[in-house]
């Protein structure tokens, strides 16, 4: 296995790192505190191409390989996971769905606007009663001439308010199994009958908006259905490999940030006449974090490389996501411990890192769901 990054990959990584450090770091704490997106910084990200990463060049994107994409996500998430989530959902889920499942007209119409960041993509699968089990969704889409009428409520939608384009899953045929009865629709923000519901008061990722979406006789052109009627759940599942690798990269970035903060703090903080980094108890925590971070990196980078070589990398993606997300919370916890009381207050970045880390074990499949997927693959189920 070749682990050397190409010149392009190194330059993408370096550019993302410099951008995150110089532009996002100064605003990360304030955006979290005030619960707003860094609008100017995201505009700059759009101009640089962060929202066209996986969209093919012919549709105005850049079309990078999965490992390059992971490297970029990792850097953003080291500094500002709230922006990382938006970037990941936009690229891995919404853009990929249209690039892979959309017809030519849909690609021409939407991909360039997604690539330029004019439209930020949001992914609407979950519902109040359908989380880990999205097949039990209730939002319905009923044909009405050349339109579908959508009714129902989606919940936990990242970029629900700030997004411009929603990828919405709804039941088109209740009489068949969900695997054949759910369809995917592209829904533009200002579609009549669509309203943005409550914005969640979250523990972390507070700079990003997570909202409900309420559909009341929302008229969506039939031309906006992605793929064939009834193929929605299959599409949703096929997006998971890429999505989970994206969240794994987010978790990796968060874990690295926690280690960085902990290392700096341990060197600077003195107790009993020595920097606390002189004490073995602290050193061992740092050593464990660093070692596990490298292990996570290898799992993620390998899943990314293999994703470009085969159709599905379900097991590898789930393993990477499971390990990296659990590691992110473990590292955040240890790093906070190393900060002592100072880790429990907002003066230090670790307080935010600790809150941001937690979500990675929940969305795009909880840790329990990942274990079910991995076990299923092992047992041939």
């Amino acid at each position: 296995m070749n682990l050397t990054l190409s010149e392009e990959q190194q330059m993408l990584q370096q550019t993302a790192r410099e951008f995150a450090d110089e532009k996002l770091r100064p605003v990360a704490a304030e955006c979290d505190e005030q619960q707003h997106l860094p609008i100017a910084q995201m505009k700059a990200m759009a101009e640089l191409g962060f929202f066209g990463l996986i969209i093919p060049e012919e549709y105005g994107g850049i079309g990078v390989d999965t490992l390059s994409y992971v490297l970029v996500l990792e850097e953003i998430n080291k500094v500002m996971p709230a922006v990382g989530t938006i970037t990941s959902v936009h690229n891995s889920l919404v853009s990929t769905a249209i690039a892979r499942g959309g017809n030519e007209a849909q690609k021409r119409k939407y991909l360039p606007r997604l690539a330029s960041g004019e439209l930020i993509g949001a992914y609407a699968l979950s519902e109040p009663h359908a989380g880990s089990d999205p097949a039990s969704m209730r939002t319905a889409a009923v044909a009405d001439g050349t339109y579908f009428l959508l009714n129902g409520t989606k919940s936990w939608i990242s970029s629900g308010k700030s997004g411009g384009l929603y990828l919405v899953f709804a039941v088109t045929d209740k009489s068949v199994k969900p695997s054949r009865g759910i369809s995917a629709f592209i829904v533009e923000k200002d579609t009549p009958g669509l309203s943005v519901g409550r914005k969640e008061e979250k523990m972390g990722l507070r700079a990003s908006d997570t909202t409900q979406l309420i559909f009341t006789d929302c008229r969506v052109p039939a031309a906006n259905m992605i793929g064939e009627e009834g193929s929605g759940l299959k599409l949703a599942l096929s997006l998971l490999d890429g999505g989970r690798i994206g969240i794994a990269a987010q978790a990796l970035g968060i874990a690295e940030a926690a280690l960085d903060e902990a290392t700096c703090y341990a060197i600077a903080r003195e107790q009993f006449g020595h920097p606390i980094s002189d004490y073995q108890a602290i050193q061992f925590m740092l050593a464990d974090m660093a070692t596990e971070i490298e292990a996570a990196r290898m799992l993620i980078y390998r899943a990314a490389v293999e994703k470009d070589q085969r159709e599905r990398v379900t097991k590898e993606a789930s393993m990477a996501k499971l390990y990296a997300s659990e590691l992110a919370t473990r590292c955040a916890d240890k790093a906070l411990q190393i900060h002592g009381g100072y880790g429990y207050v907002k003066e230090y970045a670790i307080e935010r890192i600790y809150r941001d880390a937690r979500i990675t074990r929940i969305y795009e499949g909880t840790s329990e769901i990942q274990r079910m997927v991995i076990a299923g693959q092992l047992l041939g189920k």
Partner: protein
Amino acid sequence: MNIVVCMKETPDTTAEKRFTADLRLDRAAVAGVINPYDEYGIEEAIAQKEKLGGELTLLCMGPARAEESIRKAMAMGVDKAVLISDPALEGSDLIATARVLAAALQKLTFDIVIFGQASTDSNAGMIVTAVAELLGLPALTWASKLTIEGGKATIKRSHETGYDVVEAPLPCVVSVTQVINEPRYPSLKGIMQAKRKELTSYKLADLGIDASSVGSAGAGSKVEAANRVTLTRTPEIFKDADRAALYIADYLEKRKLI
């Protein structure tokens, strides 16, 4: 409007400088970066090209590994590049470097040549005027603003008491300072396209320059010693807080700073 921007690869500014046995900067020991001052030149050249159209060529004299920095400039928006690389060039002094750059510029078509104000490794800031002199072109130096219009270039040159407006007909040579712009990040798309852009390599022979007239052999200056500069400051501590403002004003006035 055809623009040439000159770039040098310099050792990473954050790394400690090291010297070779013959007292030249050890460039192999640390990573190379785009000379930080040249980033402003590159940004200015790209911005002018975006405004005026035409083609933007980067010119660099340096070792083969400078390609990495050249590709970064391409990712920022430079169209193509010429790298003059020849073992005989090692140890070239300022005049030799200017001669090589001038010879290369004569093979290129341009309306304006843009330089950064100096390089962070040797910090002489004289290549610009030397090149202009060799080409018989006007030089506009230390620009904090550049306007290209009506067949001439106009710059603002800031100084202690204000600024001068200086102009010259095209073609001409310009150097820019750090206040002129904010260099952009390479775009992600630019990064992916950089490898596909044209990079031409010249050897000394391509420029018709005799190897003995450049490099250490042809250098008119010789480095005899390299010493670490140690700054010694004598702090004055003034304890009478009530009269601090007065004291500071007096201190500055004596040195004609206010």
